Each structure stands twice: as structure tokens, then as C-alpha cells.
């Protein structure tokens, strides 16, 4: 019989931590590669094609940046929630609520000039996302209701809400029956880098939020209290840290940033509300792994967002060039998360395999 034994080991260095993150990604590439092989596609040439099209071409690079924007906003928000040990699975729904609010403001607030309308849309988007995050936070802090289930349910509710609006009251008058809203006025549209879909304003907001959240986490009392609550909620109560305040605030930040991402997708890319699957290619879910791979460090979120932004574009390339389903991305995400868990373990413990022989009597 072989027994697996774990022994605590000293804290890993940064280099070790980084190495293990790389190993996780390689492992996930291997798992996905095996599935590609079963599918009859040579994984090496598939990855070659993806890397070439994603990082080796101007459209590929610019689309990666387009995808990086919502991933960064959602991911950086999640680092805050996850640090408080709040498993916010609801970034997807919070993003959609932001998209709804931004579209609503753009369509129904009359002829406002750009410099009023666009900030108003971002504000509405933040508030709507924050509200969607605050509901599970309140339920968690006051009644100790499991936030994983509530945030997941709120994703589904948000998806149906978008569908309800585009099929029902918000369905466009000029769109000949397609389930989309009318286009938002020109004053509500963000300026893009010419020839690309990179909406600079949201990109700037994303980068700014990374820096702000980094400062918030490392340099403020709130950041300290976040660590206390994340470390031990019970002890936090005795230490005079308001559990309710921390839970609520971190979910408002997390949801609000996702809401900003939703605003950006409407004002910078789609210019209207449409099918939820078109507005977000699962950014909220991918952001969970973005945050984890960054080891909940806001600055590293920028790096991991580039990688996963490229991956999402890669999923699209696979579909067009190789006829593979976009769901491959899901498999890659799942296996990255699993191997990250494995590596986390290697960082904390030494694993010993002990071969036991049965004693003879």
C-alpha cells in the first residue's frame, strides 16, 4: 500500500511561487492538449496557430487588449472579495447589471453632452453592479447565507433580466424584430483607438483601479481589516472589526468594478444591449481564475488578464481556424484552477509517498 503524507514546509519564495504558477498553466495546456488530440487535432500545431494569431498579429493583439479590459476590472474586484474569503462567483451577473444600467442611462436620459452622459453611465454601471454584489453580501453578513449559491443564482437572474429587456420593454423600435435595443446615441459612445475596438477610457479606468485597489489593500486600514476578516472572521469580531462593514464594502467594490466592465462593453463595443452571451464571453467566470493565478495580487491581475484575454481570443481562433468549440476555453480554465490548487499544495507541504508493506504473521 502506498500512503501519501503531507508535511508542512517553510514559506515559499516568490520565485518558487511564480514557477508553480507557470507549471499550473503548462499542466492545463497539457490536459487541453490531450483533449485536442482525442478530437483529432494535433495540439502542438493548434497551439502554434493560436499563439501566432493571438500574439503575432495586430488584430490579435488589439483584440487581446479588448478582452483584457473587462477581465482586469472583474479580476481586480475579485481580489478584494477573495481576500475577505468571500467567494463571489457573481462577477458575470454584476457585469451584466452594469451593462443594463449603462444602456438605460444612454437610451433614456435625453440629449446630454458626452462629458456628462459618459460619466453618468459609468456611475450607473458601478452602482448597479455594486447593488448586485451587495445583496449576497448582506445575506452573508446578517444571516450567514452561503454566498457561493446566492451569487451564482444572481448570475442566472441577471441573464434572464437582460433577455427580458431585449425581448420586452427595451426591444428596439428600429431593429425589425431582432432581440436587441436601439443603438445608444453617439454622445454615449466611447472613443476607440482607430482601427481597433480598444476603448481607451475603460482601459484607463481598469489600469487606475488596479493601482487604487493595490493601494487600498496594502496601505489602508481597510486593507488590514480585510486581511483580518479573511484570516479569521470570528477573531475579527473580537478585534472590533465590523464584519458587516467589511463584507458589504468588499462586495460593493467587487460588484461595482464588474459593473464598470459592463458599462465599457456597452459604451465601447456593442452600443446596445443584446444577448447576454454576446455582451460577456464569460468574463466574470474567467476573472475568477485571473484573480487566483495572480495570487490575489491586484498588480499581477494585469499580467494574468493579458494571458486569459489572449486565451479568449485563442478560443475564437480555434473556432474559426480549426472548427473547435469555444468550450475548450472552459476546459482549460477548469484544469488551470485544479493544477493551481495542486501547486498551492506543493508550496505549503512536502509530499511524501510511503510504501507500506503488510507485515507477515
Amino acid at each position, binding site marked *: 500500500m502506498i500512503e501519501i503524507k503531507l508535511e508542512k514546509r517553510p514559506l515559499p519564495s516568490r520565485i518558487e511561487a511564480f514557477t508553480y504558477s507557470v507549471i499550473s498553466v503548462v499542466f492545463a495546456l497539457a490536459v487541453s492538449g490531450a483533449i485536442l488530440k482525442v478530437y483529432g487535432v494535433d495540439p502542438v500545431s493548434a497551439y502554434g496557430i493560436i499563439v501566432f494569431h493571438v500574439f503575432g498579429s495586430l488584430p490579435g493583439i488589439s483584440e487581446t487588449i479588448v478582452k483584457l479590459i473587462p477581465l482586469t476590472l472583474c479580476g481586480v474586484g475579485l481580489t478584494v472579495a477573495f481576500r475577505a474569503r468571500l467567494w463571489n462567483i457573481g462577477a458575470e451577473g454584476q457585469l451584466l447589471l452594469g451593462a443594463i444600467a449603462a444602456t438605460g442611462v444612454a437610451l433614456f436620459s435625453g440629449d446630454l453632452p458626452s462629458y456628462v452622459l459618459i460619466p453618468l453611465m459609468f456611475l450607473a454601471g458601478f452602482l448597479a453592479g455594486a447593488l448586485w454584489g451587495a445583496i449576497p453580501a448582506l445575506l452573508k453578513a446578517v444571516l*450567514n*447565507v452561503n454566498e457561493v449559491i446566492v451569487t451564482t443564482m444572481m448570475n*442566472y437572474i441577471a441573464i*434572464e433580466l437582460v433577455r427580458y429587456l431585449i*425581448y420586452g420593454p427595451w426591444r428596439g423600435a428600429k431593429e425589425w424584430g431582432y432581440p436587441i435595443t436601439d443603438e445608444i446615441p453617439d454622445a454615449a459612445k466611447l472613443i476607440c483607438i482607430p482601427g481597433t475596438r480598444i476603448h481607451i477610457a475603460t482601459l484607463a479606468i481598469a489600469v487606475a483601479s488596479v493601482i487604487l485597489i493595490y493601494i487600498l489593500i496594502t496601505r489602508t486600514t481597510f486593507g488590514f481589516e480585510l486581511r483580518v476578516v479573511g484570516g479569521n472572521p470570528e477573531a475579527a469580531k473580537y478585534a472590533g472589526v465590523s464584519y458587516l462593514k467589511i463584507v458589504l464594502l468588499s462586495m460593493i467594490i467587487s460588484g461595482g468594478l464588474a459593473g464598470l466592465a459592463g458599462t465599457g462593453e456597452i459604451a465601447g463595443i456593442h452600443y446596445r444591449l443584446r444577448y447576454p452571451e454576446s455582451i460577456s464571453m464569460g468574463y466574470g467566470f474567467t476573472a475568477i481564475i485571473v484573480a487566483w493565478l495572480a495570487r490575489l495580487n491586484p498588480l499581477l491581475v494585469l499580467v494574468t488578464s493579458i494571458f486569459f484575454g489572449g486565451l479568449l481570443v485563442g478560443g475564437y481562433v480555434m473556432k474559426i481556424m480549426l472548427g473547435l468549440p469555444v468550450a475548450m*476555453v472552459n*476546459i482549460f480554465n477548469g484544469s488551470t484552477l485544479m493544477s493551481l490548487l*495542486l501547486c498551492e499544495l506543493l508550496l505549503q507541504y512536502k509530499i511524501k509517498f510511503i510504501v507500506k508493506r503488510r507485515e507477515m504473521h
Partner: protein
Amino acid sequence: MSWQVYLGDLLYSMIRAGTPLLLGTLGEIYAERAGVLNLGVEGMVIVGAVTGYVVTLSTGNPWLGVLAAAISGGALSLIHAFLSITLRANQVVSGLALTMLGLGLSSIIGRIFIGIPLPSSITPIEIPILSKVPIIGQALFSHDPLVYFSMLLAPIMWFVLYKTRIGIKIRAVGENPAAADAAGINVYMIRYICVFIGGLLSGLAGAYLSESYTPAWIENLTAGTGWIIVGLTIFALWNPIRAMLGSYLFGGVRVLQFRLQPLGISPNLLAMLPYISTIVVLLIGVKETLRKRIGAPSALGVPYVREERE
């Protein structure tokens, strides 16, 4: 339609719609009773659904499909078991990873099968004599075998959990693994078995969806069924009999969703009903745990570390 027929039909539909929830919830109850939170239910259910469907298509035998579905759910659950029991990984993250993996796998496996009708699906068996009883006969005894199986399974699993030595062991492992270990119970083995049971039943729930309830394969067929199951487990207060109540109640929500549609209410608003109900049901579950002082298993979500004994 006379009111008896209407009522019988209503109950019949509630039970049908509630069956996949019941199967999954019973499994998750065992896993959680042993102290392992498995948030991968959605992934296991959907892989079960697609496996059952594909195997039925290629063999023509729906029962081989059911078997394969259960095995596939069980196999996936072992990944979670290995990560969370042996390697003591974070159970929330491991479960999430399993769900992502399952969703991805299911759409890859099922992609070329979308829209192909099943050569044979699971069909109802009317139980002689009993099915002729007014209302009850229609509601309870005109189902397909998987429904009967789940109806029998709930009391059996209740009995095992509360009235047998195995049940005591399972509960001990979930409440106080160190004490259980000291009493000579193999904590790791009990946990592995319970998580595996959860996987088998989630796979069955999937097979029921794709081979009997729908019966078809479309991408994202489960639409959150697995998450509702995780919520129902709490509502059921980890009790198999209460799981029956909760599942059929939820079946009722689903039936309501379809019956309100002709009244002109937006189908998208109605589609929110199960999700909103899950949140409400969670609230009720939490209130009940406070009132009755029945909490979640004390060691739920906590990996067990065996202390060294010299």
C-alpha cells in the same frame, strides 16, 4: 378536465420535474454529511446528461446510458475527492474548477449530437392496480423507473444515515473526524465513498434530464440544476426525507413556470422563478437551522489532517 385529474396531473408533473433535483440532493447530502462540500454538482450533472445521451444514441439502450452517466459523474467526483480529501485543497475552489471542467467537457462531447433524437428514451411504467387509484395513481404510480428509484432511495438513504452503524460513522466523520478516527473509523475512506455516491447520483440526475425529462441534448441543458441542488441540500437540513419535500416543491416551481406562460407573463421573467426560489429556500433553510439548532455538519469544508501517533 375534472379537478381530480387536474390535481393528479399537477402532482405528477411536480414529481417529474423534482426528480433530478432529488437524486442530486440525496448525493450531495451524503457528501456533506461526511464533511466534504462539493460545488462541482453542476459539472457532474451536465457530464452525466451528455454521457447518458451519447451512450444511449450509440448503443440504442437507454439503461446503458443511465449506467454510463452514473459512472461518469462518479469519476468526476473522484477528482474532487482526491484534491479535497487526500490533498486537502480548498473545497470551494476545487468544486468550482470541477464545474468549469464539466461544462467544457459536456459541450465538447455533445457538440456533434445536438438535435439528434434518441432512438429510445426511458418510458413510464404504470404500476398495475395502484396506478388506477384516483389522483394518487396518476401522481405517484405512472412514472418511469428512475422516478420510482429516487422515491425509494430517499427513505433508504434516510434509514441508513440515522438508523445504521454506517450512518453513525458517516455522521461522525462529518461532525468530528478526529474523534471518529480515534474510534477506529477510516475517515478518508468514508469521505471518499460519500463523495463518490454524490457523483453517481449527480450523474443519474443528468441522465434523467437528457434521457427522460427533456429528452434531448442541448448545450447548457442543466441551466443551473446543480446549483439548485447545492441550495436544496441546505434547505433539506442534510436530511434525505426533507430533500424529497424540497425537490418536489421545486418541481412545483418549474411546473408553475410553464403553466403561467399562457397567461402572457414574459417567459424570461418566469425563468427567474427557480433561481429566486433557491435564494428564498436558502433563507428558510438558514432560519430553520437557527430555530431547530441543527447546523451544517461541523467539519463541513474542513480537510482532515491525521495527527501523528507514535
